[in-house]
């Protein structure tokens, strides 16, 4: 598996091209599709099969229209449509097999009710806005923030500490790093309690 991160300077969001050893590829969160991404797909000879959307915010989906004009691809998200484009709907616990990429779908509501995290080949977590390097997503209310922290603790922190986090914004990370240094999680009122439960 190869993962090519790309910083979209239009939206300051990360776009990921993920390929397997046979050249089958997916794009995760097409924030803004620029020449560099297209060149990367073509230079690596990637057979682009699908696009996975972590959540429907425009910051992460604006380039979808450009991609479907160029490539014949399936689009997966938690909704039936994104920006008027039909999607294949995913829900918590679904599994996808695209080439040699084994993808587990984890629903982590809080930032938005349709937020998904994709776990690929066990060790790579594509978290969108849900879990960033050093922070968690913004929410509209304290209740949603509590829901988000609870979802992260129960669904993500039980995964191996060495899992690599590929967030929608900012630098890469690992779960171990976030457990130690994620300021938003550390500040959360019931962090200790939830973290303890996740370990058990």
């Amino acid at each position: 598996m190869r993962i090519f991160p790309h910083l979209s300077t239009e939206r300051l969001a990360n776009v990921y091209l993920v390929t397997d050893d046979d050249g089958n590829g997916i794009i995760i969160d097409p924030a803004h599709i620029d020449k560099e991404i297209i060149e990367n797909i073509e230079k690596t000879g990637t057979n682009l099969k699908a696009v996975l959307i972590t959540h429907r915010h425009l910051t992460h989906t604006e380039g979808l229209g450009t991609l479907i004009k160029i490539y014949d691809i399936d689009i997966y998200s938690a909704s039936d449509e994104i920006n008027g484009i039909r999607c294949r709907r995913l829900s918590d616990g679904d599994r996808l097999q695209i080439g040699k990429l084994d993808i587990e779908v984890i629903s982590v509501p809080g930032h938005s009710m349709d937020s998904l995290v994709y776990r690929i080949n066990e060790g790579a977590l594509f978290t969108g806005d849900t879990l960033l390097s050093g922070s968690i997503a913004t929410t509209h209310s304290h209740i949603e923030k509590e829901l988000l922290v609870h979802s992260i603790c129960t669904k993500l922190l039980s995964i191996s500490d060495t899992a690599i986090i590929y967030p929608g914004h900012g630098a890469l990370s690992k779960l171990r790093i976030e457990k130690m240094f994620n300021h938003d999680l550390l500040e959360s009122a019931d962090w200790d309690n939830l973290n303890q439960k996740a370990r058990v």
Partner: protein
Amino acid sequence: MFSLNKCASPGCPAFAYKDTGYCYHHNPEKEAILASLIRQLEEASTVRDVSIVNAEVIGVKAGKGGTIMASNFSFTVFEDCTFESMAIIESFFDYCIFRRCAFIGDDIRYSVFAGSTFINCRINDSTVIHNSFMGIDTYDSDFSANDFYFSNFSLAKLVDTSLEDCNLKRTNFRAALTKNVSFRYSNPEEAFFRKEEGYTI
């Protein structure tokens, strides 16, 4: 991308070294693997897709123009090493110890140094954008003349460290502690600091 397969040694959570089935630490070819890494670094070739955790790399002068890409060096100790005019892309140096090391004129992107300790180290004249330095400890170090655009120093502890003449636009110093740190000729006003905290302690 380095192998995400776990080491075959019972209870070992580390990633396997390439397709050998075992991590660096449990690999019967441990010495040869480290020697190969050092040779590749010194010859300025591309180090790619390797995971070498908890190693000791001492006195390596990496050749100019080399590349480290999509690799993992967590918990490794680097002493008296020089990485000059290199590209370090999408690589993990988390929880490492860097002692008397120098990164000069490098292009460092999408890489992670979180939880590491830098003692008497230099990062100079480098492009260091979009990296994680969360929770690092620095002592008696010089991080001057770099572009730290969009890098993250939250919860870092910077002591006797110089960040002079750096681009700090969108650099995150949330909850970072600084003591005797100089931002002269840099632009900390464009970085993120927690408002209720000052730059210094």
